[in-house]
């Protein structure tokens, strides 16, 4: 196949259309190929704008007003947290210092979180039929922040600036009703940018705290490390 009238050819360029449509079974292989193949780069650059128009074919709908309110509520809370904590708090942790957990730093962040909590511990917005409650978390990782969003009977932990779990470990959510924290099946990592949104399984009825610890892959039945995140429910 020629590209733009050039006689250049790459057999892999047959996959360009499926790639831009997100239909390749193993897109990573083609992504790596793209890094070095100018023919395929040109083909993707030609077809991607076409795919980018496809959302315009969707029948328009109005976003629910409750959705806007919930998003704005979380954004305003996080903006305030960022303002109080300083902009460096939102920057990715420096390599080698991500798991800095000296007692002083943890306490300092805990104190900061507590002071900020007075400002934005809970954001309440009235949805069309249900309330959204956003509770700020205490996070023992410098530069990270987390909040618990509760809508109706559903809860979600929102994370930003968290480091990836160390190799061979994974984050686990626990529910504490006063006695020993109970494990959940919520095991998770975060994106390479440190963000994440994780559903908290089950009801929070009677739960006093939602905790997150770092555990071996597969999770644990009892916490094996100090909680990194604590949310008072």
């Amino acid at each position, binding site marked *: 196949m020629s590209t733009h009238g050039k006689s250049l050819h790459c057999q892999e360029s*047959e*996959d*360009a*259309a*499926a790639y*831009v*449509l*997100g*239909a*390749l*079974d193993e897109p990573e292989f083609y992504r790596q190929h793209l890094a070095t193949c100018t023919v395929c780069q040109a083909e993707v650059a*030609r*077809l991607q*704008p*076409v*795919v*980018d*128009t*496809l*959302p*315009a*074919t*969707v*029948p*328009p*709908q*109005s*976003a*629910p007003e*409750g*959705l*806007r309110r*919930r*998003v*704005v509520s*979380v*954004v*305003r809370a*996080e*903006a305030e947290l*960022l*303002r109080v904590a300083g*902009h460096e708090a*939102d920057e990715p942790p420096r390599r080698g210092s991500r798991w800095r957990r000296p007692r002083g730093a943890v306490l300092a962040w805990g104190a900061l979180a507590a002071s900020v909590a007075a400002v934005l511990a809970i954001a309440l917005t009235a949805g069309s039929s249900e309330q959204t409650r956003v509770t700020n978390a205490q996070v023992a990782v410098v530069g990270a922040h987390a909040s618990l969003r509760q809508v109706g009977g559903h809860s979600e932990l*929102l994370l*930003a600036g968290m480091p990836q779990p160390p190799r061979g470990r994974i984050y686990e959510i626990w529910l504490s009703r006063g006695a020993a924290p109970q494990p959940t099946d919520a095991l998770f990592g975060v994106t390479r*940018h440190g*963000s994440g*949104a994780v559903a908290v399984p089950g009801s929070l009825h009677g739960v006093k705290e939602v905790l997150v610890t770092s555990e071996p892959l597969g999770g644990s039945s009892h916490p094996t490390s100090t909680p990194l995140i604590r949310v008072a429910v």
Partner: protein
Amino acid sequence: MELVAAGDANAFEVILERHADAAFSLAYRICGRHAAADDITQESCLAVWRSGARYDRGRGSVRTWVLSIVHNRAIDALRRSGVRDRRHAGDEGIEDSLEANERTDAQAIENATSREIRGALGELPTEQRRVIELAYFGGFTQTEIASMLNTPIGTVKSRMRLGLEKLRDHLRGWEAVGT
């Protein structure tokens, strides 16, 4: 977007106001359920807020970027749920659900462009339009589509490519395409 990247909540609200409807519409088109579309749109909007610094003006408009985030999350959710047999959530008549006084001039222009693109998609041969829609809105891989349609995978690839080529030809006059 520079202000959003700097943590300006007011600037983000402007972005939200401009693109929330399009984001919700796309999420609903893909997942076919109101509650799921609501969740996906919320997650996507928060992702836009938290990753505003990653927006690259050279790679497209803010709307294209926002909708690519919505698309990725909606398809991920669809694949996770394993529910892959719906997603034709009442294509007809939804336009009429918008109140006339909600339509600004900008929306009217946008809707005209949408009609043009929808028309171009509708003019594709059925088999080409089908593989494009199954891939983009259904989240199916080319192997899955080949299996569903009982068609060789090479044919599926060709239909995707020919369909996109024809769409591109249709839309060549539109300045955003092919530039």
